[in-house]
């Protein structure tokens, strides 16, 4: 398969600067979207004849509409602070994957057409013409950036390099060159309501199956309600939570927490997706259309609150943009955060003492935690700065006795990307995904050596799938990646659960 030939990079330390390998990732690119995928998003089906004019016009439009984008294009002084901060550069050694160099693939064209020096003395300022080769280079290298924004943390000017990747992808889409993976998926959300293409009948069957499983395991009937009008809470979660491992174990965890908290909640078959790939391709219109499905579901079901499940970029879109995209949310109960993260909810319940937790049920696990990039660097949790780092760890410590953080420069706001974010979680980029995960995997191996860590938890569907795929390449089992709410699910003793008395007797 696609990953058969990949040489797993051997890094001595997670952030070791590799030997440069010029052109190592040249030509690496994901499958191009077909006309039918493009049409659903309002993009041309193939490269348009006047693509050069269109691309430059789009670049100008973006620079005018989004002043930040223009500032980011203008102010980079190439100081080099970002060069060794990118996991794809560290994993591949390709100098064009240094964030400054990758962004300069677009900046150099911007300078040529939109700055005085570039228009008249292009050779003096590294400005270059937009050619089809340049367009292909954009397609390749702007799909070797996961928009994780680690480099931005270290940029003294605060340039948000992900914005440049997003703009490049938007320009590519506007001239008919889209990425199959992201654009096909956005089309499915519009047609069916989620990335997976899971229709309401199949979703209902899956949820009923899970209810059966929980009752078999615990003897307690825990519901996973769908489309229930009048419920208080709408849970919006990534569709991977209905399908993949370990995601689905997390969904079981949410259900158990809601059950014990005694709240009424529901999922929606119309808004059966938290993910919003409109963000990845830089398309405000598509991002908005997907977000509006959540608004419609909330209104149709008459809920008072919206809670998001474990999904990294969904939380960024929800926390940072939901009000602009799909607000105002004045019809929701304002005494709760709008929107709320499932971890905020669970942490509140833990503090209130409504959950009966036995962390020793996770004693077979020695755990570390991977901060997902979009949660760590693009959002918050709770009502204090850094809540997005503390709340997940608080919940973990309440349900798991053996927790060890990785090296400080690889977690929290300096967290390393899983290697599959930002629309790159596709099999045709497996080689890049394996190489890009090397720094995170090295940091993980370090805590395994020092503390005997066996498992890693995450709160993002992409991270979970990516790690399930790449961890075996680095000596771990594929099920060594866990959902945080899977740990909660393991530890929680439901009211009336089978074996509760025996457990308590043992503890005594």
């Amino acid at each position: 398969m696609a990953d058969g030939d990949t040489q797993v990079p051997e890094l001595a330390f997670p952030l070791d600067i590799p030997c440069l390998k010029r052109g190592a990732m040249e030509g690496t690119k994901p499958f191009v979207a077909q006309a039918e995928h493009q049409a659903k998003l309002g993009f041309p089906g193939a490269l348009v004849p006047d693509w050069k004019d269109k691309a430059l016009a789009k670049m100008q439009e973006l620079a005018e509409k989004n002043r930040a984008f223009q500032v980011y294009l203008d102010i980079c002084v190439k100081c080099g602070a970002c060069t060794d901060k990118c996991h794809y550069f560290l994993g591949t050694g390709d100098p064009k994957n240094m964030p400054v160099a990758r962004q300069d693939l677009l900046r150099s064209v911007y300078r040529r057409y939109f700055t005085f020096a570039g228009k008249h003395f292009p050779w003096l300022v590294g400005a270059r013409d937009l050619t089809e080769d340049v367009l292909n280079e954009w397609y390749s290298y702007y799909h070797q950036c996961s928009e994780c924004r680690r480099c931005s943390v270290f940029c003294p000017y605060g340039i948000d390099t992900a914005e440049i990747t997003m703009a490049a992808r938007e320009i590519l889409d506007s001239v008919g060159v889209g990425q199959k993976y992201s654009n096909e998926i956005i089309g499915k959300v519009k047609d069916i309501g989620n990335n997976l293409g899971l229709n309401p009948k199949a979703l209902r069957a899956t949820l009923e199956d899970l209810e059966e499983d929980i009752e078999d395991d615990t003897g307690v009937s825990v519901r996973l309600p769908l489309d229930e009008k009048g419920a208080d809470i709408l849970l919006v979660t990534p569709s991977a939570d209905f399908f993949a491992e370990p995601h689905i174990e997390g969904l079981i965890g949410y259900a158990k927490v809601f059950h014990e908290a005694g709240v009424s909640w529901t999922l929606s078959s119309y808004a059966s997706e938290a993910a919003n790939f409109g963000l990845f391709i830089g398309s405000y219109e598509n991002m908005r259309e997907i977000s509006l499905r959540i608004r419609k579901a909330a209104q149709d079901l008459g809920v008072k609150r919206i809670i998001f499940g474990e999904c990294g970029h969904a939380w960024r879109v929800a926390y940072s943009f939901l009000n602009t995209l799909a607000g105002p949310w004045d019809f929701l109960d304002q005494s709760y955060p709008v929107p709320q993260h499932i971890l905020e909810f669970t942490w509140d319940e833990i503090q209130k003492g409504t959950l009966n937790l036995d962390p020793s049920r996770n004693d077979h696990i020695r755990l570390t935690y991977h901060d997902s990039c979009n949660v760590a660097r693009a959002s918050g949790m709770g009502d204090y700065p850094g809540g997005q780092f503390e709340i997940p760890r608080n919940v973990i410590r309440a349900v798991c006795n053996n927790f060890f953080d990785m090296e400080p420069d690889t977690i929290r706001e300096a967290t390393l990307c899983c290697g599959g974010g930002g629309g790159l979680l596709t099999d045709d980029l497996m080689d890049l995904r394996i190489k890009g995960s090397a720094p995170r995997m090295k940091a993980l191996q370090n805590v395994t050596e020092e503390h005997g860590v066996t498992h890693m938890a995450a709160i993002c569907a992409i991270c979970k799938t990516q790690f399930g795929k790449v961890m075996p390449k680095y000596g771990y089992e594929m099920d060594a990646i866990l959902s945080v709410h899977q740990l909660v699910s393991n530890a929680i003793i439901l009211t009336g659960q089978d074996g509760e008395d025996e457990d308590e007797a043992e503890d005594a």
Partner: protein
Amino acid sequence: MSYQVNGHTIEHDEEGYITTLSDWSKELADEIAKTENIDMTDEHWEVVNFLREYYDEYQIAPAVRVLIKAIKKSMGPDKGNNKYMYELFPYGPAKQACKIAGLPKPTGCV
């Protein structure tokens, strides 16, 4: 991009998933399996048949968990587990088995 089975040409996409689902046949499944370096055994067929039945009813592949539960029922706990599924289909029961069963590729964060 196509498979050749009994003199018929069957189109597939860049990743080997057939584009017209009704083109599927057992012979084609054997052919796809060959390109995946899989030798189809009764156990492989048990999985493929379940996927196709599920798809007939729900127009989508089942969650991995649902698949494993069904296999556990029909083939026992030794085979109804994730590890065994990956022994049968090293690239994952969801994607590789779907490809052989002639179903669309599951998309999204999976």
